[in-house]
């Protein structure tokens, strides 16, 4: 028989198995292509939506999240594909034994089955890639119809080609392994049923008989089919790591970024300043979620100064917990290059970093010991003894400095060291915080033009009315909680789009488990038939299959979720914020994911017991 005729006949006559593998491979390829281009689209959308908004630090959290999810997605897809191909080819081992026993040459056997493998892999990868692209278009249309606003980015054909080639190569590498293995063994060994599906002729040391009959049967079956069980666990663990990163990472990143904003702006904060300054300050604060032009203002105008007496009177009002006087102005800052010492170049260890860039920035003089802001800082915070040291915002650090930790800047004819970089929504991160006394000396103004008061929320209205009374009619008293709310809503909106990814990852994981269960059940169908023939009720068989799926899901869940947590905390989110509510939310999501996965095994289980016992036994 020719090298093409045999594989085609073999594939078409194993209709069920061939279609299962093609469907499984197609879905995995489609899901990977879809998630990758959809993720890219989402990242593009976030960049588009946030253009001119969101600080550089926050943007990098979003993009890092999407990149890690995309990478994990490709890894998980490759693992699923290799797993399915490996199972498919493992089931050919017996046939290879038969062919060798009847005198077929090794090279002929190899070419028969390689052709078969290539037909399946290429068919599935081509259909899968097309389906993935179509699913992306369909999904974006659907989401737009549902009220999300996601633009269709031009397709990244190189990325799609890369996934396609990766999957084709990986499938061949993993598919060839069992063929080569079978060709190397003696025909008699290859014909042994022990060889075909990885059943091991060993007794388990531990038999969990006290956990009930169903569990015992499921446990034995899984343990004695070690090879496919191990493969399934690895495969599902990879997918569940992806689900965990997207769920855990998504939830924690959402809460953490919200917390960064909350800490930087402060809660229960009242802004006191003259109306012009107040309007400017609010505009600077709103840049995070609403990019707009801000006009110029002479902040050092004596009319905007808030007297020290007033600050003192306001500070002692019962219910005022903290007073944070700030002197704000907008000025140019000039980058000062720094020096890096490279010990690997002993001849010339000093390298200059930085350019001579300049930029306009919002500068705030603060008293480090009494400020209400608790930023996330890379580096160190300011302290009472600092004079010409500064904290700079993340966007400013990104655009005007190469290595802010070793550089400084010049402002108002004075050099400043950079103590740290802070994540701050004010003026979208184009901000500089310096000690009040330093700025005051440079501009020759001893009083503040903005005062932030942190008040006791339990006594809000009384404290507010007293503040207003002390401030009189000229000063504007404005609560900042409303603006903080807008910041948080904006972040929520972005994360709710990103959180679409775990939803699709979960669907991918479910499909993966169903593919595994269908292949697994197909391999065990005859045994389930025997069980039913000797008295096992359909429900007992369903329970056994479900228990097998549950064990595989829980074991791979434990591995995958731990890996997901590791990736999330090590690579994704610095200084994560985990509250009681976060834990409940994560546990809830993960439980839903694991339940969906386990329950999905019921479909092939029910399908199996619907067949008559006689027809199952005759297969």
């Amino acid at each position, binding site marked *: 028989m020719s090298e093409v005729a045999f594989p085609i006949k073999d594939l078409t006559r194993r209709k069920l198995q061939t279609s299962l593998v093609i469907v499984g491979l197609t879905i995995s390829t489609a899901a990977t292509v879809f998630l990758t281009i959809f993720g890219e689209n989402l990242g593009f959308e976030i960049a588009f939506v946030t253009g001119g908004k969101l600080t550089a630090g926050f943007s990098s959290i979003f993009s890092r999240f999407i990149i890690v999810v995309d990478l994990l997605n490709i890894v998980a897809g490759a693992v699923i594909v290799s797993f399915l191909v490996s199972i498919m080819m493992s089931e050919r081992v017996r046939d290879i034994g038969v062919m060798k026993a009847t005198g077929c040459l090794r090279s002929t056997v190899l070419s028969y089955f390689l052709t078969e493998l290539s037909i399946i892999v290429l068919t599935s990868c081509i259909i899968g890639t097309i389906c993935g692209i179509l699913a992306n278009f369909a999904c974006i249309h659907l989401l737009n119809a549902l009220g999300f606003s996601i633009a269709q980015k031009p397709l990244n054909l190189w990325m799609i080609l890369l996934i396609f080639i990766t999957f084709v190569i990986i499938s061949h590498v993993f598919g060839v392994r069992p063929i080569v293995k079978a060709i190397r063994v003696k025909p008699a060994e290859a014909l042994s049923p022990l060889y075909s599906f990885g059943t091991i002729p060993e007794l388990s040391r531990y038999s969990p008989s006290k956990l009930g009959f169903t569990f015992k049967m499921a446990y034995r079956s899984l343990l004695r*089919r070690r090879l496919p069980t191990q493969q399934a666990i690895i495969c599902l663990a990879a997918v569940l790591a992806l689900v965990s990163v997207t769920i855990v990472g998504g939830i924690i990143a959402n809460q953490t970024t919200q917390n960064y904003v909350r800490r930087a702006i402060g809660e229960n904060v009242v802004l006191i300043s003259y109306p012009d300054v107040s309007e400017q300050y609010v505009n600077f604060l709103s840049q995070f979620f609403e990019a707009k032009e801000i006009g110029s203002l002479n902040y050092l105008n004596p009319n905007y100064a808030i007297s020290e007496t007033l600050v003192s009177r306001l500070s002692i009002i019962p219910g005022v917990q903290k007073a944070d006087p700030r002197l704000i102005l907008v000025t140019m800052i000039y980058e000062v290059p720094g020096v890096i010492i490279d010990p690997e170049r002993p001849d010339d260890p000093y390298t200059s970093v930085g350019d001579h860039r300049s930029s306009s920035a919002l500068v705030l003089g603060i008293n480090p010991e009494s400020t209400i802001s608790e930023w996330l800082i890379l580096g160190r915070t300011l302290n009472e003894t600092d004079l010409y040291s500064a904290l700079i915002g993340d966007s400013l650090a990104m655009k005007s400095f190469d290595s802010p930790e070793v550089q400084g800047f010049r402002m108002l004819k004075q050099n400043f060291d950079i103590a740290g970089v802070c994540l701050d929504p004010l003026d979208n991160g184009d901000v500089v915080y310096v000690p009040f006394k330093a700025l005051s000396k440079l501009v020759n103004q001893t009083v503040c033009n903005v005062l932030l008061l942190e008040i006791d929320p339990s006594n809000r209205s009384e404290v507010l009315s007293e503040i207003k009374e002390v401030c009189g009619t000229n000063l504007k008293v404005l609560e900042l909680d409303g603006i903080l709310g807008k910041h948080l809503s904006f972040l929520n909106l972005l994360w709710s789009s990103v959180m679409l990814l775990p939803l699709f990852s979960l669907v991918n994981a479910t499909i993966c488990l169903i593919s595994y269960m269908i292949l697994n059940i197909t391999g065990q169908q005859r045994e389930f038939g*025997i*069980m039913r023939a000797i*008295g096992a009720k*359909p*429900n*007992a068989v369903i329970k056994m299959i479900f228990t097998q799926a549950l064990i595989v899901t829980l074991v791979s869940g434990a591995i995958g979720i731990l890996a997901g947590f590791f990736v999330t905390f090590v690579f994704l989110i610095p200084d994560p914020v985990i509250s009681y509510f976060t834990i409940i939310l994560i546990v809830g999501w993960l439980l839903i994911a694991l339940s969906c996965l386990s329950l999905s095994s019921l479909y092939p289980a029910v399908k199996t017991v619907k067949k008559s016992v*006689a027809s199952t036994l005759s297969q």
Partner: protein
Amino acid sequence: MKERVISASFLCKNYHIGDLIIEALKNLDLEVLEGEFVLIYGSSGAGKTTLLNLISGLDKPTSGKIIVFGHDLAAYDENFLATFRSANVGFVFQSYNLISTLTALENVAFPIELAGWPEERVRKRSEKLLKLVGLPHRANHFPTQLSGGEQQRIAFARALANDPSLILVDEPTGNLDLETGLEIVRILEELKTKGKTIVVVTHDERIMQLADRTLHLRDGGIVATDE
């Protein structure tokens, strides 16, 4: 007066392969009494295994009635039939049909565990049955590590696990050598002495000598009966 264990009337079973309809059984009538040893023989494709499948409730007839221990099997659902088989029928399949991931002992124990016996009794009963078929030393071996004859004897032990009144045996010696075949004949003889109702599909002359009645099946119907 002995009770009727099996009663089949106008029994038909058709199989569909594409557009082709294969009539495996055609209007077959059969009665088997309690404690009777009935042997069925016939050429390949005569409908012997189909008849055993219908008697055990593994399959349902296309038309006609099959009543076993007073139950019209066509009228019941899978759950009832599973319980019915577990309690009343022991089936020894032609291809042994042992569960490959269970050891010999576990295979024998399986129907007893299904019946809900306590663990200790399950173990004792399984060991006793393995002794009965002469294989106590093979308890911890998997089916693939056993010879055909040994697998057949394990299948017998499993069929007797819940002490069923009706034992159905499909070609028990077809794949075995002379000596192992004799061992199977010995087991069947012992079962007959115990008063079990036995229906065996075979061409083996040695088993034929044990039978109270032999039925010749051809083209889905009984063409001759010898008492």
